[in-house]
């Protein structure tokens, strides 16, 4: 899929709200022991869904940046690899914002649990965006990722 700006944003919001949310629900119990420090499942979900909110909201700013960079590519595309490696800077920013108490206070962010959650969620989103999305939405790839 070669994204347009609105396609980027729509696809991100859709995948975070669906695929990432379901994945987070599934992986939550496995994160409890990794988080340690007496954290319960509700603490883990508080952390994980906080991260998803940031991926969605701050992600809009990231998409504006990516779209700007895309203008310097002749093909006006966004290689698959970029979609994967941008998880690194985005993850760092989300970690910093969570630590600063955004979008809500989660106390000290357990680094291991955050990393496992963020990395696996990012990977699942990336995999779904690179194949199964086309099956569910046959026009999606021709419309730059727009769903509406």
């Amino acid at each position, binding site marked *: 899929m*070669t994204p*347009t700006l609105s396609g980027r944003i729509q696809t991100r919001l859709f995948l975070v709200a669906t695929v990432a949310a379901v994945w987070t629900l599934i992986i939550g119990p496995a994160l409890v022991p990794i988080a340690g420090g007496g954290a319960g499942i509700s603490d883990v979900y508080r952390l994980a869904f906080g991260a998803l909110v940031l991926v969605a909201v701050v992600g809009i700013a990231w998409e504006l940046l990516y779209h700007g960079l895309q203008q310097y590519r*002749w093909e006006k595309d966004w290689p*698959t690899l*970029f979609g994967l490696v941008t998880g690194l800077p985005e993850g760092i920013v989300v970690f910093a914002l969570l630590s600063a108490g955004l979008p809500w206070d989660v106390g000290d962010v357990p680094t291991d649990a955050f990393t496992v959650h963020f990395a696996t969620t990012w990977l699942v989103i990336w995999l779904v965006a690179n*194949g199964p999305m086309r099956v*569910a939405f046959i026009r999606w*790839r021709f419309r730059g990722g727009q769903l509406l």
Partner: protein
Amino acid sequence: MNGDDTVIVGRGGSDRGGQGDLTDHLIETSLWTDQDVEAAGIPIVDVPFVSVGAGLGSFAMVDFLRSGGVPVGEIRVLGDSITPTETYEYLATNSQIPRHERLRSDSGSVMDNIWGFPSYALREAWSKRSPRRVWQVVTEPILDEYFTPQAGQVYESVEREAKRIGWEDMVVLGYVRMVRKRHGGGYFAVQTRTEPRGTTRLAYRCRFVHLAIGYPGVAFLPDLQEYRDRTGDFTRVVNAYEPHDHVYEEMRRRPCTVLVRGSGIVASRILQRLFDDRTDRGAQTRVVHLFRNYVAGPQGDSARFRRPGANGFAYQAFNFPKAAWGGQLRVDLEKLDGEGRAELLGKMGGTNTAPRRSWKRQIEQATADGHYEQQVGSVEAVEPTPTGDAIVTRIRTSAGDRHEINAQFIIDATGLLARLDEHRLMADLMEHTGADTNPYGRLDVEPNFEVRGTASEPGRLYASGSMTLGGYYAGVDSFLGLQYAALQIADDLADHGLGKRIRTARSVSQWWRWMRNREP
């Protein structure tokens, strides 16, 4: 649309033509009545949808319709081959892409799968039990070159899909030379067949017609066409798209000089073949490459619209930038009309080739070894040498100098013929059915690929493929472009009552049927 003399057929291929001929009245009349056709003795077949061409354009169209729930009995495909890849393979093989070589098409442009998933790269990795192609498609074009499928993979998978959708039951062999509007709505598509009992004709009375006839033929540069017309020499001056193996055979027998004209993807293929023959088959060929427009460096004044270029070639992975198929450039183009559209198309397209490392290496090596040289200039004359064993090409450089190039062969790698008036059906369509040309001189279509000016309420006439270049979509002459057009047309047909729109539930269930190789 039922007439008294209607011939009802159950399955394609069995539609029987009659001896009736096109009368002067029919030929001269743009709007036909049922009585006109019956009076001429041409049997009528009623079918809602007809696709003319029977190549990959028709195949993409029918693949979508079948997934949209249109039964085999409501579709007829009219063309001269039962195999949808036949013409494509013929042209690809001539232009030196045998089955094991790779096409210029991306992993997700999957001809036999309307979703593009699983992609060619995943399927090749699976069949070869090797992660190499997955790595390539994940890291393209940053750490690796774009993945492109092997020609054979495309042909074989299309064959499988053709069986799944009942292709052979829909195809009826024969040429369609006219599509005329019908009094009362819809169209007549007249098919002519040469059979042992003589020429027969059939009139398909249909509400919807789709045209995907491809290129009318090969095109020669004017000076080479003039040379062939004047001398009758079809052996030494050849087109890359016509059979020309004798050229390579001769070059293996004795040292020759060959002049290659053109700098697009086909020229790259031809150069590869010539260099491969030197390294693998002992040929002693010297290659002179003549450029009309030499690309010395990147093209474009703006950092945000600059195409890579070097050594004479403009480089991009596919014939248009990737975003022309579904990204921001598709959106930009759809907003433009007339000259503005032609200008953007020209900037994104034009003559260009793929930046493959293996090709660049071959050229560097051959240049260093002294058996490849580049010349830039316009051709003033092409003539046989007095001894008749070579051809001399007289060129004039931009500085005004004159040079002569002697070569045993000239390969014209500049393209295929795209003039509409060279095709009987297209010429007839413009004269009688209301079709017109776009800023590129090809068939003028709406964004949904309906041919402008040809509606015959409640019928519609659509076109896809190379003949629609210059319209609102750039990549029409590509696998993904054919699928894009097919989807637009299928949606419009669904709005007009033929088949259903492929929404999420249908899409997923049809995909699952595809995965299990069950009929749609």
